[in-house]
């Protein structure tokens, strides 16, 4: 296995119910695969007591496995990553959502893929091979595929899933990318992978299933689409 260590960054906000499950799954799959790992929980002052649950998990799994790096209030994803990287002791960093839409079972595949091509980053993709989604209606699928197609045509990013946030990075690569990315929300993940291509980093892909359990109409309103279009044009004109 070598000396590789994998730091999982879990930014949380009101994930009291999901955090124990995702932690349990992470530990299960890492223990099975035998890789060295740590889970860094970055809770942004959740009022639902996510941090208290995280502390209990730390008691169960040990503070070498569960690392708590809370922040006082919600400060955004980019800074959460920077905050997490600072405390990460692994040479690889995995970012994922804590809401169970990203399944830890794919992480051993990410690691295998990374080793195969010595990639700088491995991105989970819903759009190729066995990848897919659960819980999306036709409208959501059309918007997703349409937005992805337009982006592919305009930016030719060399990766199939641009807005996904289930990825494995070399730590220094993630550091550099986060520092050079300015966008927010969906566009942030897109900018990360576009800049990765711009800097000449190599990208591997692993098909993943994205299980959306809390899908609601509110998640994709007009303002999200406008924000996405703005971000797309920004990247179109600057990269």
């Amino acid at each position, binding site marked *: 296995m070598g000396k590789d260590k994998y730091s999982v960054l879990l930014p949380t906000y009101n994930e009291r119910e999901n955090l124990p*499950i995702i932690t349990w799954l992470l530990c299960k799959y890492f223990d099975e695969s035998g890789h060295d790992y740590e889970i860094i929980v970055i809770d942004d002052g959740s009022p639902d007591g996510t941090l208290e649950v995280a502390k209990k998990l730390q008691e*169960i799994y040990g503070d070498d496995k569960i690392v708590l790096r809370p922040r006082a209030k919600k400060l955004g994803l980019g800074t959460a990553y920077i905050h997490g990287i600072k405390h990460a002791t692994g040479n690889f960093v995995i970012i994922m959502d804590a809401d169970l839409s990203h399944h830890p079972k794919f992480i051993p595949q990410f690691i295998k893929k990374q080793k195969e091509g010595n990639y700088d980053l491995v991105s989970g993709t819903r759009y190729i091979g066995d990848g897919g*989604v659960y819980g999306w209606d036709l409208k959501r699928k059309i918007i997703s595929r349409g937005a992805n197609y337009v982006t592919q045509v305009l930016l030719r990013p060399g990766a199939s899933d641009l807005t996904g946030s289930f990825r494995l990075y070399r730590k220094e690569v993630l550091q550099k990318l986060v520092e050079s990315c300015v966008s927010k929300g969906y566009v942030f993940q897109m900018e990360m992978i576009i800049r990765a291509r711009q800097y000449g980093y190599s990208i591997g892909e692993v098909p993943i*299933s994205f*299980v959306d359990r809390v899908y609601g109409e509110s998640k994709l309103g007009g303002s999200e689409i406008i924000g996405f279009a703005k971000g797309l044009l920004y990247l179109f004109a*600057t990269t």
Partner: protein
Amino acid sequence: MVVALIFSEPLAIEHLWECGRRLVCKGDLVYSLFPIHLTDKMTKLMEWLTGAFLILGPWTAVVSKTIQNEFTDKYYIAILIFPVILVAIFGLVSVAIIAYRVYNFNDCNEAAEELKTQIKEAKEDLTKKGLKLD
């Protein structure tokens, strides 16, 4: 570089690869063996504008009859509507591609089932380990 490419001298190509890689390491945007370094340094916007210019430049010359010969006279109408046809074809192909991809977007029902089972399993195990869950 061009000489190396023309003669396909293996050693020279190897050398170019090396150069290219070193440039990549420096964060430069040159990462191709082929002489398209110009486009690699352009933004995507500039690439599109260049493409549009390369097509619309000659087109304007023909439509405004700055350039006129037997060929342009014979196919004048076709040339006139050429950009529109190009855009229309692009649009149709795009819609077809998106429709195909939406149709083939996998529904991961098994993954959802698996997750549901594992959530139950996790809750039972964590309760055993002393975590209170509601």
